């Protein structure tokens, strides 16, 4: 083993390198003594760099040697190199003073480096957490990033990065623990709302104390214990992980004599009122409130009060108008009972069946009624806030209030002029009256304004290896070999055919010539229309992703040889529904089409029904055994003149049903994370896919198409 250099040897070298900045009061011997404590390898490294740096500036070299030992104490050699290079960079750009300061601040540098190394940013985990939360809760909760971790029961906010621990693994676990803990606050009713005031109980309770900050801290720590004990039953593994993450995770409130007081929050049926009662007991005692655990996040009473208020009002109005509509539709279209709706007698109950699943029962004038999916969801959300449906919610909204957004539209469409060229009229379904509004929508076919076809080339380049994969997998599909039996020629003998002809062969009769097996591809005989959402909300990323999807898709379809057409759609009001031709069935995928794909731009609104009806008509005209209509969209049907909410959804659903009756398979690809609320109702449970990340869209669309047609 090589031996370290001794101090004298080092001093000699340093004198040589740093001579210019040494003086009687600043000699090399102190430095040399420090360096003599390093490993041989480190010494050589230090002297080498001292030489390199001194060629730029001797003072920098001096500072370097003075601090390199600290550097080695805090970092490995690679990081020490980074430190040197960064400091030299500062020196080059900003001069000696900031440069030497960078060398002196080696500790700060090392600390920053280690933090950065192990920190986990939000963007890296949000995809996983979305799925995790969906799986654990069965609900689509929105997850967003914010400065602090907290929840308003509609959205879970998580910090932009976690760097609490010196390990990515632990920081990731911290994200997961925090997310689940906030989920538990929603699930176990931490912010349950007082039906009398519309304000969460906890907000009102905390506000009563002279020192609300202390009260909130006590509440948080009591509620923390309550939630942990509930989670223990369902997610014991996570609770164990949480304990490992936070030393204070288990009941640090456990002081003498408290255990009895805390008993209620250990019960499986505890609720937030128990925590509030305990808070009241503890507030006046002289106790130390424990630090909150690292995954606890914060409770922002002001924001919660605000968000709750808005939601409560919104849902109350919605529930009551839904109820009014339900009552009217049950009374039947003929009976004229307008104005009497307030007198309908409504009761509501939630039953637990044997399997522990809860079932909602609504009774209208003694008649049990099944809640429409949409309304059941509102009911669920209300129950989450209040623990029940409060009495005043069970009064249907009066005077046809719910129809106000449609009233303006009641007058029949004006007499149609002669059908102008390229103008089409379609009926629209009014679910409340259960009839079609005749010729309600006016649709025009327009050409998309072409842009530069280079854009398409650029996309192909960007995805070049993906394109290769896509081509390969679609080729495989095309070449999906089927055995064609009883052919007049082929690669193999058809034993079955021979055996059958055996008697003929034996007796010298005429033998059939269909004795071969051919492996050949069956004609796919499939025609597909893509209808692409060009509504205003697709602006930005979504529009880009749609464009990229179309490019990749066209590649795939070219390989496959399926007949296809692409249309964009948008519009504003029923008088101006617009369909943009991108590629018709007759056109081939040429530079014109490419330029149109390049040119797709976000427009206005999304009135889907009329578009589906129009494209259905186009598809039936094509001669194909299987016809598919695929929608690529970013949200619910929505137009300016009342075409939203249930009305839009029901018309779209009706249009899709018409398409199905015409033998068309509709399918929807969407990036709307709320889509699970309405797409199953519109398209059916298996006929849609939600792509959680826009960036994944281009890849997914081809993938889905492949799955869909094999």
């Amino acid at each position, binding site marked *: 083993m090589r031996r370290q250099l001794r101090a004298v040897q080092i001093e000699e070298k340093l004198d040589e390198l740093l001579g210019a900045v040494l003086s009687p009061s600043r000699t090399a011997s102190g430095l040399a003594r420090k360096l003599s404590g390093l490993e041989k390898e480190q010494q050589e490294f230090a002297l080498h760099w001292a030489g390199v740096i001194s060629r730029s500036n001797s003072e920098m070299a001096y500072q370097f040697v003075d601090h390199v030992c600290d550097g080695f104490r805090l970092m490995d050699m690679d990081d020490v190199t980074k430190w040197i290079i960064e400091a030299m960079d500062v020196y080059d750009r900003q001069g000696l003073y900031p440069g030497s300061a960078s060398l002196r601040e080696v500790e700060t540098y090392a600390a920053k480096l280690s933090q950065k190394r192990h920190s986990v940013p939000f963007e890296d985990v949000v995809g996983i957490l979305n799925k995790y939360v969906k799986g654990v809760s069965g609900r689509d909760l929105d997850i967003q990033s914010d400065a602090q971790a907290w929840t308003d029961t509609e959205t879970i906010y998580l910090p932009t990065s976690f760097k609490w621990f010196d390990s990515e693994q632990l920081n990731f676990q911290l994200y997961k623990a925090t997310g689940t803990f906030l989920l538990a606050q929603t699930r176990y009713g931490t912010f349950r709302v007082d039906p009398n005031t519309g304000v969460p109980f906890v907000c009102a309770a905390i506000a009563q104390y002279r020192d609300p900050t202390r009260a909130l801290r006590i509440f948080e720590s009591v509620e923390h214990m309550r939630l942990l004990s509930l989670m223990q039953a369902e997610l014991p593994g996570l609770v164990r992980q949480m304990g490992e993450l936070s030393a204070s995770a288990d009941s640090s409130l456990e002081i003498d004599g408290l255990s009895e007081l805390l008993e209620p929050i250990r019960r499986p049926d505890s609720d937030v009122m128990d925590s509030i009662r305990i808070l009241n007991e503890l507030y006046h005692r002289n106790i130390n409130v424990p630090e909150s655990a690292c995954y606890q996040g914060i409770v922002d009473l002001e924001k919660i009060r605000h968000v709750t208020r808005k939601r409560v009002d919104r849902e109350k109005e919605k529930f009551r108008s839904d109820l009014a509509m339900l009552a009217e539709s049950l009374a039947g279209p003929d009976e004229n009972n307008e104005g009497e709706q307030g007198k309908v007698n409504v009761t509501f109950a939630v039953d637990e069946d044997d399997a522990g699943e809860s079932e909602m029962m609504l009774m209208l004038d003694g008649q049990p009624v099944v809640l429409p999916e949409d309304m059941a969801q509102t009911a669920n959300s209300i129950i989450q806030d209040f623990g029940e449906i409060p009495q005043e919610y069970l009064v249907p909204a009066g005077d046809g209030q719910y129809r106000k957004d449609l009233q303006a539209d009641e007058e029949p469409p004006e007499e149609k002029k002669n059908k102008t060229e390229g103008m089409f009229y379609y009926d629209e379904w009014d679910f409340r009256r259960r009839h079609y509004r005749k010729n309600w929508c006016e649709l025009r076919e327009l050409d998309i304004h072409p842009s530069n076809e280079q854009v398409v080339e650029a996309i192909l380049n960007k995805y070049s290896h993906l394109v290769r994969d896509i081509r390969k997998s679609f080729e495989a599909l095309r070449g999906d070999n089927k055995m064609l*039996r009883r052919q007049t020629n082929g690669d193999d003998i058809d034993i079955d055919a021979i055996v059958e002809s055996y008697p003929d062969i034996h007796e010298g009769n005429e033998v059939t010539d269909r004795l071969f097996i051919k492996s050949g591809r069956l004609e796919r005989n499939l025609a597909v229309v893509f209808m692409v959402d060009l509504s205003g909300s697709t602006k930005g990323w979504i529009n880009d992703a749609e464009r990229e999807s179309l490019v990749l898709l066209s590649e795939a379809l070219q390989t496959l040889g399926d007949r296809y057409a692409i249309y964009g759609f948008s519009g504003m009001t029923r008088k101006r529904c617009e369909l943009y031709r991108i590629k018709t069935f007759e056109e081939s995928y040429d530079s014109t089409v490419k330029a149109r794909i390049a040119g797709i731009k976000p427009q206005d609104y999304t009135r889907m029904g009329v578009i589906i009806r129009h494209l259905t008509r186009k598809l039936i005209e094509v001669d194909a055994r299987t016809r598919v209509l695929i929608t690529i969209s970013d949200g619910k049907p929505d137009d300016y003149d009342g075409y939203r909410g249930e009305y839009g959804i029901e018309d779209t659903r009706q249009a899709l049903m018409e398409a199905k009756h015409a033998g068309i398979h509709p399918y929807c690809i969407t990036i709307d994370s709320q889509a699970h609320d309405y797409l199953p109702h519109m398209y059916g449970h298996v006929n849609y896919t939600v792509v959680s990340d826009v960036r994944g869209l281009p890849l997914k669309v081809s993938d889905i198409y492949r799955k*869909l047609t094999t």
Partner: protein
Amino acid sequence: MYRRESEDYSIRVEPYYAPQGSEIELFLSAHRNGIPVLLKGPTGCGKTRFMEYMAWKLNLPLVTVACHDDLTASDLVGRYLIVGGETQWVDGPLARAVRVGGICYLDEIVEARKDTTVVIHPLADNRRALPVEKTGELLHAPDSFNLTISYNPGYQSVLKDLKQSTRQRFLSLEFDYPENELEQSILMHEAKVDREIASTLVRFGVMTRNLKGSGLEEGASTRLLVHAAKLIVFGIAPLDACNASITQTLTDDPENLTAIREMASSLF
């Protein structure tokens, strides 16, 4: 290739089957009335097991055919073979089941080619007969004969839809993954696993099913939960068992894998 004795197909020991609803009574009355049956449901939810149970209960042979896209009509009905220099007709599984008056179960019927599917049409309406074109025979099904087909409506492929003219001949029984309690007892019975592990596995199953449509094509089936339970009883650590028999089986996507693994680690 074909077994000759229908006895080979009979089920002598009572199969364990935990009913999800009234499917047993419905099947019995369909059988009594000569109505063919369509089992709808996702993979691994007990359809095959149900058929075994019904065959045992009715004391009838059960002939099962797993359909695939190369399955021809003669694969079902029968074909000539050469035996000792002579051609000899041999019944296919469907003809065999008709002759002995047993149960014929066509698993995953949509996988079969469309032209194959039509051979069951005359059997599945009130003619209850199977024309054997090649021999010119018309086989009449005895009263005890039953035709059952299965179909997974979760398939998204537009090419694999069951034609109306086919489906409208059948009585449909809908299967789904069993309710939590029931699934738990199935695991306890099938894998001899204790109540606590069974209940945790069932909750894991439900979590993965929540992801159906947002990343996963299908959640964990009862069959996969049984697999995991068996591994755990065998001494494999629960997380490893879940990972190997469920998580990795469901997906290859890294994001899905992590999310599902984290669900498991939260549970155990």
